[in-house]
């Protein structure tokens, strides 16, 4: 009788990450299928890493918050086949709402660490034009009847207002200022050519206009001003603080990342953009879901044996400005700390729900490359129904000369 060998824990690395340009919901991608966006991101990722033999990919995990129609049919498998991966490569689908792609990454990382997988593709897509937020949901009446959650928990904008309620010193003015900075930083990053290199040009057809190619994000508004922001309506409550200007929009887009065990990456000569230290997800009251990144980060730091002072780079998803501010406030970080979202964030480029987790990672990878003095960074995001997720990464370039 043979005795099985326990897998030993492997180091997990981010080899590469890319995304399609993000669009406004139902705008430049109105005539493009969600699965085609996902396929495009995957093929762009593989094209950038030609030394990877496709048959060595062990698994594919793709996220979407709404898994029906062109986001149904098990995207992990269907997008793999459509992308031309060999049919020997398996795939599955992941859903943790906004943290879908992040969860695809962490779940695959678990498999890689476990040794059951050496190379994998993680991805996320959301076509909010084809799948408006909340479309087709059927919340159990018990949620409200038994007061499991309050009504506000089911509308993301309302949860952001609730955060303002909880932290009155985090004012609308501070949120607007943060939003403006996001737009400005994004505009600067575009001007410096820092965003474009990870965008995969994506064909998008419009029946009225013909074929076009998306090469840049559609949502950014570089001409935003504080005055302009101050006049916007607060759609979630009268005299509220959350506006379309200090929130992320409704968007279409896809992201994809290549993960590997460090040993396999080295063996195949694949680049290493970030090394995963650990990750954690945590829950909070669903009414203040935006607070989720605080407990998930505390939990992840504890696992890693690090403190917030050890983190030199932050990519915090900007679902709402208030949610980032609450996070920074908790950890005593300034609203305009240059370590936070240096290329702007979702308020400017958009937040196609389940895809955003990987966008944070590709931004962090860019910071790592630019700042070899930074050793650790985190990507973190809030998640509907009261959760947060945090991944801590180590800079593989740390200590190298800039």
């Amino acid at each position, binding site marked *: 009788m043979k005795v099985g060998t326990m897998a030993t824990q492997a180091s997990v690395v981010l080899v590469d990450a890319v995304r399609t340009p993000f669009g406004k919901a139902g705008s430049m991608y109105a005539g493009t299928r969600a699965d085609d966006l996902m*396929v495009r991101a995957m*093929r762009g990722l593989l094209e950038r890493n030609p030394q990877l033999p496709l048959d060595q990919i062990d698994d594919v995990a793709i996220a979407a918050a709404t898994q029906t129609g062109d986001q149904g049919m098990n995207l992990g498998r269907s997008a793999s086949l459509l992308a031309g991966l060999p049919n020997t490569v398996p795939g599955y689908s992941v859903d943790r709402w906004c943290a879908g792609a992040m969860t695809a990454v962490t779940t695959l990382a678990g498999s890689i660490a476990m040794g059951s997988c050496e190379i994998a593709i993680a991805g996320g897509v959301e076509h909010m034009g084809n799948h408006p937020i909340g479309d087709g949901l059927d919340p159990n009446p018990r949620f409200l009847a038994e007061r499991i959650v309050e009504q506000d928990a089911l509308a993301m904008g309302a949860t952001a207002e609730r955060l303002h309620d909880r932290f009155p010193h985090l004012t609308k003015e501070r949120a607007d200022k943060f939003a403006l900075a996001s737009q400005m930083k994004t505009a600067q990053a575009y001007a410096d050519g820092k965003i474009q290199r990870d965008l995969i*040009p994506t064909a998008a*057809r419009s029946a*009225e206009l*013909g074929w*076009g*190619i998306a090469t840049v994000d559609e949502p950014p508004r570089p001409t935003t001003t504080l005055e302009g922001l101050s006049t916007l309506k607060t759609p979630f409550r009268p005299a509220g603080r959350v506006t379309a200007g200090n929130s992320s929009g409704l968007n279409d887009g896809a992201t994809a990342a290549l993960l590997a065990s460090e040993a396999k990456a080295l063996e195949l000569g694949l680049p290493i953009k970030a090394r995963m230290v650990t990750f954690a997800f945590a829950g909070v009251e669903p009414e203040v879901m935006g607070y989720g990144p605080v407990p998930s980060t505390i939990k992840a730091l504890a696992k890693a044996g690090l403190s917030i002072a050890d983190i030199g780079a932050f990519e915090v998803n900007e679902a709402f400005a208030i949610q980032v501010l609450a996070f920074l406030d908790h950890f005593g970080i300034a609203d305009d700390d240059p370590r936070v979202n240096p290329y702007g964030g979702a308020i400017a480029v958009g937040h196609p729900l389940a895809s955003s987790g990987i966008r944070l990672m590709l931004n962090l990878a860019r910071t790592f490359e630019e700042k070899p003095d930074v050793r650790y960074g985190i990507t973190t995001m809030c998640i509907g129904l009261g959760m947060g997720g945090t991944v801590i990464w180590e800079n593989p370039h740390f200590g190298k000369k800039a």
Partner: protein
Amino acid sequence: MTSIVLPEGAPEEVVTNALVRDVDLSAFGATGTLALITLDNGHDHTRPNTFGPQSLMALDTAITEAISRKPAAIAITGKPFIFAAGADLSALSFLSDRSQAVAIGKLGHDVFRRLDECGIPTFAFINGLALGGGLEVGLHCKYRTLSATAFTGLPEVFLGLVPGWGGATILPQLIGPEKAVQVIIANALNNNTMMKAKDALALGVVDSVFAPADFLEKSIAFAASVLNGSQKIERVDYTNDPSWDAALATGRAIALKKFGGAEIASPMKALELMAASRTSTRGAGFDAEDQTLADLTMSDPLRASLYAFNLIQKKRKKVEGAPKAALARKVGKVGVVGAGLMASQLALLLVRNLKCPVVMTDIDQERADKGVAWVKNELAKLVEKKRMSAESASRLALLVSGSADQNVFAGCDFVIEAIFEELSLKQELFKKLEKIVSPECVLATNTSSLSVEKMGEGLEHPERVVGFHFFNPVAIMPLLEIARTSKTDDATTATAVNIGKELKKTMIICKDAPGFVVNRLLTRFMGEITDAVDEGTSPEVADNAMRSIGFPMSPFELLGLVGPGVGLHVAKTLHENLGPRYRISPTMEAMVKEGIKTFYIKSEDGSVVANPAALALIHKGDSPSTAEQVRLRALKALAEEARMMLDEGVVSTPAEIDLCMLMGAGWPMHLGGILPFLDREGISDSVCGSRFHPAGVASLPSK
């Protein structure tokens, strides 16, 4: 550009719009923008983009718009799955004035050539089907990419036209005369073969092939690489290539062979244009194309071709006189009586398409087994040729079985007999089968000339008897004649039509009459030739009397294919049933008696010569005819017989007769099957007192 008003009666043009958008090339490593023109008629892929006058004007406007944006490059692509399927042919049949035809040709050139002459690098991103004028737009561009799953080709010569929007002039210079002859002549005349992407790449028709998943992105990256100089596409100057004469001669030989030695205008004119392209300027080539296109467009053969093409397309989908499809009964098991070659071919065809149990019987188990083994061996051959997966073959092989006991037909929904052509045998068989199968089971016969009606006589359920007549080889010949007796009911006919559809056959439904349609006409036609020989005409004169018409083979070549035995048998049956105009040739009888199978044989040096053994058997009369006399009597016989068939109600429309001759006899499209040719030769008028088709339907409109 001046717009063209379509002639009266022409259907309204489905306009292909040309939409222009800018693509930023900086994301692809080049500078500036690419003006991307999308061709899109607003319909899905089932209604491909085409170019009529308004579509050409729309493209012209788009090119102007693109140029005005001062782009680094201009590219043109299609809608999903379709680039462009070529000229909008629907108006051609209505042109009554040659100048209109010249104008349409010229408009196409004037618009397309701007892509070559605008001074900006131009690209065709052929994302899907590109045929004829669709491919020609691309040929005017400086560079071409093609989607890996797209098909492309120049089918003009197949249709009786020439690639006259630049194809005949540009292609030989682009890929050389040999390959151009392959595309323009050989492919077109080989049942309109389209090029797969890899073929188009190998021939040099396109510069690069990309997977469809990101075809457009890759194509733009290709354009960028050409623009920034990282990729160079070399072109060869074929002007002084030594292969010109041989290539053109090959093209000519292919065209002659296709039409039984006749010089048919479209391939000959295409070859002339290609030959001229060697030395003339493009402009002169285009002018010549305009004239040739106009000549062809204003000719009866082209009108007949268009009629035939539309007829084939239409009747492939809708069978004239078919009962409601809903009446068709489900077919879950079929039987084939007989296990000889014909029966085995039927069993193979049935099992491949119906994918249900097929049982074969013969007089002993050994013969039945032999038939089953033949089918299984054919399936294995398909696997070997990679035309079928091993799994499909094993699935189908398990569905075929053979027995000497006809009780295996129990439970069949459809049984077809292919036993010896002897009425009494078939009558006896059907009576026996009726005791085994259900009252609804269709009893079909593949007889070529016996009375289906008589086969059903004395049956309890004659309403389920139907003629189901294939042409040899059954897997390839597209026609199926379904013959109804006076008793055949609609459910039976509907079931037969449904099976025919599953078998992917083009069908006509005819009255049960001797020889149905194709054999009746062919036998009458052949009879006139053999009669002429029997009367003393030299076989050479008689057999070559119709060469110039363009039939695929001469009467005696056809006889060799069918076999004198079968030919004589059919002639005898028709003689008995239709009267003495079907004569029984003593020469044929002698050939069958002596076992001479062919009139022509291959001599030792490979050339085809008359078989001396056959020549020796000729019954020589003393009233020889001239070639012209033979030609006329044969054509008159066709007209007379066709008229009789229509009067008898064998089929209800002349179009069905044409369809039969196109699909069952392989008669060429430029004859429109046959009746348009008889009309334009004045034969119909002289024999029947009137045309079969009104002027303008399959011919030029009357002046």
